[in-house]
């Protein structure tokens, strides 16, 4: 995975920087607390939230367990609807495929709608190296791109910028990329949004190639789904002649009906809305009744592995592939609130990043070895997760892996990971652990949250974690870990799991 930010320091150093930045801390605190409260209200409206969450978890587990069959079914359905399916084993291959497809259109610029998968593979940089300019069109991504910055939150990537900074970036940079910022631009959000509308509209109207990700792919119908707020997704999905979607192989759901679960849980978990402003679904290049001219004439789907099958091979860690990228776990995380998204050194920040990045990329680098320690194990992330990923369980599992080594899968091959003892990775991990545990504020906030919602069971951490956990009450991973449940229930088939 080429997503490691170059020269990224290990988590504790990066976190220390973030904690020292008052703007960043203030913005993050305001943002996470605002979304947290709104989310709780949106979820409370649904009397069947527990059942929806359980259904989401089970649908995803069922799909992952038969991922090969569903991938083949999806490929057939997309092809039958007029699309072309490509397979990319890693980031480089995905970038090569997309670059070739863009070049075949003869175009040298593309419009993009926010996609974590394309950030993960570093697509913009790869395109730029081949002389193709990729314009990000989410307001936040635009802010990040114009500010030559890195995103810090899944949903609100520019959460670390306040309005004054945004105005300054727009004034200084918009002219370089296209239509300049209007004269006398102030820092009111409405004016800033208007400036972005004008700047980007020019690009949408002339765009010939659009690039997207997708929130869901329906195997039985070949339908792709993009959930968004601003309308830039609709622009990228309907105006260009060619659409290229780069999507992780874990984004499949078996049937159209399965969307009834996720279209209820995703918006409430992410933006705390009953429904996000826009959701688009499309099936290959099929038109509506108006016929020709309704959307792209050419559609390419690039299915991305890039570490996902390695993650799938880990019986404990594979549950991370259920993630629907709602970002609820970020907003409740006391460590994220203090450290900020950049400290995680990956496009996937926060609790989900702490379990996903080391699995997608391996724990070979300092940052990846330290990530499983970037947590106080308070369990708030598990509690809010709409697909019930037991993040603390996976964190503990990955810590064991860093410290004790063991069998892992890398690029499809089983390899034995050496214990990190005495290595740079272990030292980084230790520092991260110390960082999280030496912040009583972070720990307390987390425990308060957790204790309202989840029983706390003291538990001793394996390996060097033992020394710390002996002195503190750590919330346990649940009574029955995923691993045991998986075995006991034959992979979830022999009985209904009880929602924890």
């Amino acid at each position, binding site marked *: 995975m080429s997503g490691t930010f170059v020269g990224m320091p290990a988590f504790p150093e990066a976190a220390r920087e973030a904690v020292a930045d008052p703007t960043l801390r203030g913005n993050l605190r305001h943002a996470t607390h605002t979304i947290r409260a709104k989310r709780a209200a949106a979820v409370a409206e649904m009397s069947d939230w527990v059942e929806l969450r359980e259904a989401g978890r089970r649908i995803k587990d069922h799909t992952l*367990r038969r991922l090969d069959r569903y991938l083949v079914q999806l490929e057939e359905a997309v092809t039958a609807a007029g699309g072309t399916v490509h397979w990319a084993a890693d980031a480089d291959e995905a970038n090569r495929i997309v670059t070739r497809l863009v070049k075949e259109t003869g175009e040298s610029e593309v419009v993009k709608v926010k996609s974590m998968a394309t950030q993960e593979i570093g697509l913009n940089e790869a395109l730029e190296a081949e002389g193709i300019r990729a314009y990000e069109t989410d307001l936040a991504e635009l802010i990040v791109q114009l500010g030559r910055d890195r995103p810090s939150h899944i949903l609100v990537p520019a959460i670390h910028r306040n309005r004054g900074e945004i105005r300054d970036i727009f004034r200084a940079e918009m002219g370089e990329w296209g239509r300049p910022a209007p004269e006398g631009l102030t820092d009111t959000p409405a004016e800033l949004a208007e400036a972005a509308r004008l700047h980007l509209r020019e690009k949408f109207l002339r765009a010939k190639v659009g690039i997207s990700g997708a929130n869901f792919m329906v195997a039985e119908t070949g339908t792709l789904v993009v959930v968004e707020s601003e309308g830039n997704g609709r622009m990228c999905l309907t105006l260009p002649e060619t659409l290229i979607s780069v999507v992780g192989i874990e984004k499949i759901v078996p049937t159209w009906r399965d969307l009834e679960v996720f279209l209820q849980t995703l918006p409430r978990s992410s933006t705390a809305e009953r*429904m996000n402003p826009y959701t688009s*679904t499309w099936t290959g290049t099929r038109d*509506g009744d108006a016929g020709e001219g309704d959307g792209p004439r050419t559609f390419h789907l690039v299915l991305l592995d890039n570490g996902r099958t390695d993650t799938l091979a880990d019986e404990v860690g594979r549950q991370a592939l259920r993630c629907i990228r709602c970002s609820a776990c970020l907003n409740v995380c006391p460590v994220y609130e203090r450290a900020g998204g950049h400290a995680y050194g990956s496009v996937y920040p926060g609790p989900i990043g702490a379990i996903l990045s080391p699995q997608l990329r391996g724990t070979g680098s300092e940052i990846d070895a330290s990530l499983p320690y970037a947590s106080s194990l308070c369990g708030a992330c598990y509690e809010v997760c709409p697909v019930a990923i037991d993040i603390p369980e996976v964190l503990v599992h990955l810590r064991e892996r860093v410290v004790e080594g063991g069998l892992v*899968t890398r690029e499809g091959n089983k390899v034995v990971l050496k214990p990190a003892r005495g290595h740079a990775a272990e030292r980084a991990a230790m520092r991260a652990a110390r960082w999280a545990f030496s912040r009583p504020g972070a720990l307390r906030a987390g425990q308060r949250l957790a204790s309202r919602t989840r029983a706390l069971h003291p538990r001793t951490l394996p390996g060097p974690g033992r020394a710390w956990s002996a002195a503190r009450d750590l919330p346990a991973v649940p009574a029955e870990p995923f691993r045991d449940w998986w075995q006991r229930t034959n992979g979830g088939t022999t009985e209904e799991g009880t929602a924890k």
Partner: protein
Amino acid sequence: MSSRELILGRVRRALADVPPDDTPYEDAAPRGYLREHGARGAEETVALLAEHLADYRAIVHRCGESELPSLLARLLAEREAATVLVPTGLDETWLAESDVTRVADRAESDAHELDAVDSVVTACAVAVAETGTIVLDAGPDQGRRRITLVPDHHICVVRAPDQVVSSVPLALERLDPGRPLTWISGPSATSDIELDRVEGVHGPRTLEVILVG
């Protein structure tokens, strides 16, 4: 070996620990959640739709069948629209009382032409009360997806109560996945600047919904 075979092979090896299992898909996941939340009559469902649409700052109107042409004429006049996009299958009587210049939805018109049009009037496929959502399926009375995207003012006519359902599960049942669908819940919005919700980044900044019937 192709990457397709490589990836499928990796998936199969990764799942080597999973015992073979032929549970039919229907039994794979419990569906203990509700089909809709709360029991409501048809009229209450329409009222809930109106409330939730307004929550996300759509402008909601209600009228009888016979009042629709005059209401549409008034809304377009108030907007001072000079031109209005019309899907090919839109009921001709709807715009009978308006003298705004009609622009047909054509395959040839490019995005710049659409950008010059003031308003668009469409019907819808279904509306969802619990979430305040209207869904377009590119049917003849709704037109190509882009005509409801580029103009800054969208008026959407919902036949109440026939086209109004309570919930997302009930809406999905009515929709055809083979058609391009657009789910709209309020006007375009962003919360990207210090989490203030601001209307109107790219889609129509004004969304008016008429509940007719």
